[in-house]
């Protein structure tokens, strides 16, 4: 019964259902491991003290012969910008250090309905603004493969905890690559769904029109299982889409798995570091044997993607984050003797530097006189990219690129250079701007540092994307012995 923490979703749910081990045993082992290991990587902000009680309830259900949900007993870590009723949701910010939501996000409710156990809340860049998880008020998260290196971000805790085997799977949020980038840096699978497929209700908004909640797991299959539970129309989110109609219009026959035409985006591979470049081509060599048609393709508008992304994201963020004024919730600060404007300034001074930077940029691009020059233009670029990608998807089933053009780098290396930091997102923002699904899967290591492959598909082609990703995952078959960390 050793090393239960290494099991995948299917192994855990079957093991518990078949009585090989109890839910309580599994959760205790995970909690022990978190206590021993997480002090090294700092992926958790809050641990759910109720997890064991919930495990006991699942065991009771099983022993009494009651039906349990499809995810019964698995433990899921949640990025700390997703609301969990009764469990602190800090967004890694001082602004919300005492905030306990009174309600569950839709994704949390759906996980709980299937008897998944929420194990705790995971570290991130403050309000999901960052690409390394160095911008957290709760300390940075380290890369489990090499503790001197960044784990990527902003869902760094979500990726690092899965790689460190501190939970079965996790949820992150992806606004410009925040699930895929840390998944790539931590050698796990991270998936950003089509915009509107997963409810954002309860996700603390950073950039509403770009972001989606997405799962991180150690295998594509685990990611699929989480997606089955969390996706679908939600009456609490007007931007969710009834997929029953859309999936039928985009028919994909899984019998034709191997007849797929794959395009490698030239602009994205050309910008990559040598080691990343080589790794991508050797991966292509491996999965080419499976009969895919593969060729280079081009996305001209990609050169404007990053500028468009940061304009739209910061604009929306500047408005979204206005509500954090500490009047209704937040942290302890007596308002006596303050005029309200002074109080706002005082409390809002508690945002971290990167968040302040984005609020200022966002306020600027929305201000009268500049709106047309920046925000509207960025929206036009967004439409252009969407249009160009749509055309490419008439020709190709899938488009691939490196997830991140560089290897994981040392902690502190880019923290003082925002432009270099923003460049990390250059390949991932495309999927957010176009609203299409994209996944990052591990394809190898260089000097012990992970490299990820990004695969994108047209909107609502999740089934095709995940099926093919599984084929590629198997064909590459990288060494899956995770870091020990003891």
């Amino acid at each position, binding site marked *: 019964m050793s090393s239960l923490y290494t099991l995948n979703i299917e192994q855990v749910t079957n093991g518990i259902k078949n009585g090989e081990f109890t839910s309580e045993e599994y959760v205790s082992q995970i909690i022990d491991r978190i206590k021993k290991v997480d002090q090294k990587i700092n992926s958790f902000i809050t641990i759910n003290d109720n997890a064991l009680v919930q495990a006991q309830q699942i065991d009771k259900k099983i022993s009494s012969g009651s039906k349990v949900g499809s995810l019964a007993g698995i433990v899921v870590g949640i990025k700390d910008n997703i609301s969990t009723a009764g469990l602190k949701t800090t967004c890694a910010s001082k602004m919300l250090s005492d905030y306990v939501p009174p309600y569950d996000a839709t994704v949390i409710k759906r996980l709980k309905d299937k008897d998944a156990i929420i194990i705790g809340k995971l570290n991130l860049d403050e309000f999901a603004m960052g690409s390394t998880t160095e911008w957290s008020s709760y300390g940075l998260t380290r890369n489990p493969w090499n503790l001197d290196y960044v784990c990527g971000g902003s869902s760094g805790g979500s990726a690092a905890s899965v790689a460190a085997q501190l939970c079965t799977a996790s949820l992150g949020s992806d606004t410009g690559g925040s699930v895929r980038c840390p998944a790539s840096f931590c050698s796990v699978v991270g998936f950003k769904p089509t915009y509107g497929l997963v409810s954002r209700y309860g996700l603390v*908004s950073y950039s*509403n029109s770009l972001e989606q909640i997405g799962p991180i797991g150690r295998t594509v299959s685990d990611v699929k299982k989480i997606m089955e539970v969390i996706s679908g129309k939600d009456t609490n989110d*007007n931007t969710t889409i009834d997929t029953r109609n859309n999936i039928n219009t985009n028919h994909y026959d899984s019998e034709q798995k191997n007849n797929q035409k794959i395009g490698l985006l030239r602009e994205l591979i050309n910008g990559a570091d040598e080691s990343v470049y080589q790794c991508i081509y050797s991966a292509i060599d491996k999965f080419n044997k499976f009969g895919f048609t593969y060729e280079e393709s081009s996305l001209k508008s990609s050169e404007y993607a990053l500028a468009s992304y940061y304009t739209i994201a910061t604009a929306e963020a500047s408005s979204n984050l*206005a509500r954090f*004024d500490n009047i209704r919730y937040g942290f302890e600060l007596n308002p006596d003797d303050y005029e*309200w404007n002074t109080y706002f300034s005082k409390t809002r001074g508690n945002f971290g530097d990167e968040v302040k930077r984005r609020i200022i940029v966002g306020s600027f691009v929305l201000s009268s006189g500049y*709106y047309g020059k920046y925000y*509207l233009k960025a929206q036009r670029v967004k439409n252009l990219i969407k249009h160009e990608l749509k055309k490419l998807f008439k020709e190709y089933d899938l488009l691939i690129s490196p997830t991140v053009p560089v290897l994981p780098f040392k902690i502190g290396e880019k923290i003082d250079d925002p432009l270099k930091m923003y460049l990390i997102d250059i390949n991932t923002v495309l999927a957010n701007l176009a609203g299409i699904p994209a996944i990052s899967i591990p394809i190898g290591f260089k000097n012990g540092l992970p490299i990820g492959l990004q695969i994108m598909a047209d909107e609502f082609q999740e089934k095709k994307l995940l099926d093919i990703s599984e084929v590629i995952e198997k064909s590459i078959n990288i060494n899956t012995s995770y870091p020990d960390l003891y």
Partner: protein
Amino acid sequence: MTGSSSLPVKIGLEIHCQLTQLNTKLFCSCYCNYREKEINSNICPICLGLPGSLPILNKKAVGFAIMISKALDCKIPELTVFSRKNYFYPDLPKNFQITQYDSYGTSTSIGKEGSVKYGENYKIARIRRIQLEEDPGRLVYENGRTQALIDYNRAGVALVEIVTEPDFVDPKEVRIFLNKMTSILEHLDVCNTNLEGSLRCDANISIGNGKKVEIKNIGSFSDIEKALTYEITRQKTMTIHDIEIKAETRHWDDKRKITKQARSKEEEEDYRYFPEPDIPKILLENISLIKTPELPDERKSRFINDYGLSEHVAQVLIDNKDLADLFESAIGIYHSPKSISNWIVSDILAFIEYDSSGKKTLTDEMKIDAKHIAEIAKLVDDNTINRPTAKSIISRIIKTGELPSDIIKKEKQTTTIINDETILLESIDKIFNEEKKATLDAKHNPTAINFLLGKIMRMTKGRADPKITTILLKKRLDEV
């Protein structure tokens, strides 16, 4: 000096109408009716702007806004979007307001380019735009407390903003127009305009070639006339003295009855509008098929054509939907439209008081309904009671709620018309005895007959049937 009194005045209005007849707020399922609720009890994660909450559009509110747009003859676009208006204020839970905004070549209103006919001469006021937005919470100042408290019960209640072109030339026109608007909103059954704060109005005003001055914070419709009159005088005085009128926002000071300059910071505010990303575009085509109920103008024509009411009487009834409704219920009980409308317009109206919004309102204290009015009209038409008696019965039942038929049953001796010839002859003889000289005169002088009739009326407290009494009087005079 130019003749300042001849400078043309231009007034435009921004009316905020709460959609009080909805069940829920604009973006969540909290009650729309926040009034008299315990402070901060009518709230949820959405209207409190908790992190992660998303607005869920109330489709019925869109339907109501479309009904208003249609009633005001507006063009309705195929689709519409919402925008965020960003500004910091403690009563605003998200520190932005979800509203609609016309700019950058996109129209995001529900209705635009409409018009309303109002007043006796059917003047036309053009409507620029009709849009939906959310109401903020309320700041509460308690005596002896230095902090302001915030009640979010109202936050998120649906408001329709109606913006007019600057088509009014004097405050009186504004009042007549607002009466018409009130009646339209009541007829559409989208807003109970009697509720305090359900209908609010800002005004902008300029004279001659002067700059536009906005007046905000006008508490009631009755104050608008006062605020505008004050502002016209102020601006004209400044013009006479060659002082430049600045484009500014002024607040109406209800206590001192003056307008005063708002903090200049307010006008420099940049609201950084941008499309609300959490609410997808709304197709208005299907919703705009909603039928609107009968509007005031249609109802007025019906009153005139079907019931033969005069233009004036019909207008008075229509201007106050409660009265029009009362009229229609009463004629359902006793079909005599002319007499019933006259009783309402000339008598009942006198008992109705002006409410805080400056509108005449039927209150709960008034215990009179359609049945009472129908009975009164019938009793008079049947010659059972006379008009003066009817009037005194009205002033009584308005407080007590007694039925007129019950009163005259109980108090037959003091209320009903006396047409019994024996009783009338007794009275005549009594007067002949008291007024011997006048009786003799009357044999030849018709004026003296009237004098005697008057005496008899006084004696019977006005209850003697004048026609029968006159005939009997003449007959009796011939006999003596």
